[in-house]
């Protein structure tokens, strides 16, 4: 039966043009499916070969199992690796059709009605035309020579750039999930900032046309050419539902001489219900390469969703005087699990890195900060500062810190600090005495705890993220 399906697929290789919406690749991971994905996206041959090479590699790789949160075995042959975007027919028509709990959360976050609809893929009326908003933005960007499009589009229109940089930070021979992504990635964002251009606005998937349903194997590539600057936002504060349980995205950043990339993530995918059923596995590989001199990459993340979050946004500080930063808030509640942190690999001289990580665990959740600071022999005069603080709420949750520190250069210094504590009775008492209820008081204290990281977020994001922090901890006290 399957063989026949594959035969059918082969026929599609050249003649496929219409009827995208109703098409799904058969379940399973094999060469034919990869050829199918590549052909349906009309990819050039080199990319197909690249994918196949990744697939070859994948066959010998084993799934890693050193992480703290364990999960049931994933049957990779039981997944769909390509399904075309859903048509509006299948999507909910009205807000009333949605889970009332979701709507309640929207209300608390203060998300406008129209936007709520858009987030759930409900067709929006003409008044709120996000497409036209996006178009205006697009004109400004084109004027500056900035390329901001989907990666599929970039493969067609800017193949040279894609070919040069794709896989240069996360090679196809990397770990299991990254290689899996390389073999079967479906879509994602592509950004190129030309030399000496400061991107005038925050770029966000939010404004990208056709941004919806990029699927579970997303691939993002951001290149900041010499002397340029870009700030990129991923995700949004509103809770996102998705049918795909496994998310294995790859994000590659490349900063050339004097360039700066700021990458902010707010992740609030479905964490599963109160008993820990369902929820998304967020196994993402994010890596930035400070390729040129004086370049800078800064990661900021607010992780509140997903059943399991397992990611380490990293910086490879290759250029002399380059800077890497990592700011993170991770909140786990109920049965959520997170194993997150960063890697700072110092290769160039005078490189600097800074890590600020705040973890909050409540309910029956489990949270781990895992990080690596590696100063190599040639990275003279490099410095690192790491601070990771954890806050525990209740005695059924866990908070762990696992830093790896490697210093091979005598002119470099590393400082690491970590603390674990709980919200003190005194603090709570003080706030409650002044008229806040317990939940508000906890929200306020937690926000203060996270302040250092929240400040790093772009303004409009920061406000929403602050509310999100409070909401994520609902029901965890008292």
């Amino acid at each position, binding site marked *: 039966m399957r063989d026949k399906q594959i035969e059918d697929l082969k026929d599609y290789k050249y003649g496929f043009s219409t009827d995208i919406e109703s098409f799904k690749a058969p379940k399973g991971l094999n060469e034919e499916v990869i050829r199918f994905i590549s052909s349906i996206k009309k990819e050039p041959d080199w990319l197909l070969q690249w994918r196949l090479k990744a697939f070859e590699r994948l066959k010998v790789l084993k799934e890693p199992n050193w992480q703290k949160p364990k999960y049931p075995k994933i049957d990779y042959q039981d997944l769909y690796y390509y399904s075309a975007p859903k048509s509006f027919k299948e999507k909910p028509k009205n807000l009333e059709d949605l889970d009332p709990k979701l709507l309640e959360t929207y209300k608390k976050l203060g998300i406008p009605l129209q936007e709520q609809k858009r987030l759930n893929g409900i067709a929006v009326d003409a008044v709120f035309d996000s497409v036209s908003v996006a178009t205006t933005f697009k004109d400004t960007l084109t004027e500056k020579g900035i390329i901001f499009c989907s990666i599929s589009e970039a493969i067609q229109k800017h193949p040279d750039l894609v070919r040069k940089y794709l896989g240069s930070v996360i090679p196809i021979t990397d770990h299991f999930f990254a290689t899996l992504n390389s073999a079967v990635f479906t879509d994602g964002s592509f950004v190129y900032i030309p030399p000496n251009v400061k991107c005038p606005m925050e770029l966000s998937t939010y404004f990208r046309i056709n941004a919806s349903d990029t699927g579970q194997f997303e691939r993002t590539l951001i290149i900041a050419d010499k002397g340029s600057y870009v700030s990129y936002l991923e995700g949004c504060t509103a809770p996102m539902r998705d049918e795909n349980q496994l998310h294995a995205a790859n994000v590659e950043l490349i900063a050339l001489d004097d360039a700066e990339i700021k990458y902010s993530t707010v992740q609030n995918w479905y964490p599963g219900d109160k008993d820990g059923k369902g929820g998304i596995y967020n196994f993402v590989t994010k890596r930035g390469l400070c390729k040129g001199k004086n370049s800078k990459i800064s990661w900021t993340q607010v992780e509140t969703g997903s059943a399991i979050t397992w990611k380490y946004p990293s910086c490879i500080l290759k250029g002399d005087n380059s800077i890497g930063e990592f700011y993170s808030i991770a909140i786990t509640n109920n049965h959520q699990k997170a194993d997150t942190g960063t890697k700072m690999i110092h290769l160039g001289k005078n490189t600097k890195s800074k890590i600020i990580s705040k973890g909050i665990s409540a309910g029956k959740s489990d949270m781990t900060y895992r990080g690596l600071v590696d100063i190599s022999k040639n990275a003279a005069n490099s410095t690192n500062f790491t601070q990771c603080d954890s806050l525990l709420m209740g005695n*059924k949750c866990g908070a762990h*810190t*696992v*830093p790896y*520190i*490697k210093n091979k250069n*005598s002119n470099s*210094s590393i400082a690491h600090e970590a*603390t*674990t504590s709980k919200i003190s009775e005194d603090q709570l008492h003080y706030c409650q005495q002044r008229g806040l209820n317990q939940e508000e008081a906890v929200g306020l204290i937690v926000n203060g705890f996270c302040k250092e990281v929240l400040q790093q977020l772009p303004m409009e994001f920061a406000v929403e993220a602050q509310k999100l922090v409070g909401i994520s901890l609902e029901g965890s006290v008292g």
Partner: protein
Amino acid sequence: MEQKLKTEFEKFISTSNFSNQEIKLKKEALDNFLKNGFPSRKLENWKFSDINQIIQKNIGELAFYNDYSVENEINDDIFIKEIEHNKIVIINGKVERLSFEYEEKDKINLSTLDNFNQNSNDDNSLLSLNNSFSNKIHNILVKKNYSFKKPLVIYQITNEKVSNTNINFQLNFELEENSSIRIINLSDDNSEKNFINNLFNFNLGKNSILKNYKIDKKSNTNIKYDYSSIIQKENSISETFIFSSGSHYIKNEVNCNLEGKYSSAFINGIHLLSKNKHHEIRTKTNHLYENTKSYQLIKSVINDSSKSVYQGKIYVDSKAQKTDGYQLSKALLLNEQAEFNAKPELEIYADDVKCSHGSASGSLDDNSIFYLMSRGLNQKTAKELLINGFLLDVVEKITDDEIKKFLKNMIGLN
């Protein structure tokens, strides 16, 4: 290697005089070791120090059979003169003398164990190796309400009769209620290229106090693994001090289980390394009951192309509310080839706790050197002064004044 281990084990058993029960346990331990082999970097605990590779590179083929029937002569010159003390003299893994001349005989009980703890926890195959090849295990029991009048010095001597050999040694201490003991564990190596595997078990009863000072100063090419297991009941205190400098490679591992309320554990250590030495300290303090406390301070001075590793883990059980845990590791890298690796780890399941750790590494502060030089010191003395001060911090933590004074002289810190 497997065949060799088996034949040498048979030879060892047939030439020794173990009970059937012991032989059974020893066989089990050997099987466990054969199953796992020497630990390698694939295991998380051995990530920074692959002992399998280190043994292969520095020793090559190891002999496991050790003839405990040979009488070794004790040279009295090596004994410490400054302090009156009790002695246990161990030569090549064999206990040659046990003398408790300063203590009341009816307050201590010396015996050998027929039954030993299999200790086959986590992924530590070296404990199994120790269990299978170590000689009769001596047990020192300090009775209720008795405090040792003088320190006990354990001399661990190796002589030139052994080389390329694996020496396994195990010793047990039991401290009953309200008792206390002070121990200096002194290594004196006159042999080359052996793999020495030590295991110390300490059982601390209610209100008891253990002070254990481990000194490895004499330069030698041996490779050592030293594991101390400390189990603490209510209100007991353990203090462990490690001075690790002489051997080519040492991994000192201290595992502390705080099982009773108000028990506390202090572990302090110094790595003073030169040439191409590679030393590691790994501490694991398990807070298993309410109101327990632990403190670790580890400092490394790393010269030439030597390598220092610190792995420290504080584990807090969900029962262990009101835990107070603190851990600090600092390293001075004095040479471009020097390397420092650290993994300070917290694993916490209780919310009402105060746990923190810190780790810092870098070179000597130029401003401090400049300050001292501007006051007339030359660069060399200025550096020495700063290094001394850096290490003195740890030595000052020693709570026993008599031993502190002796160790300061011995290490050369004043």
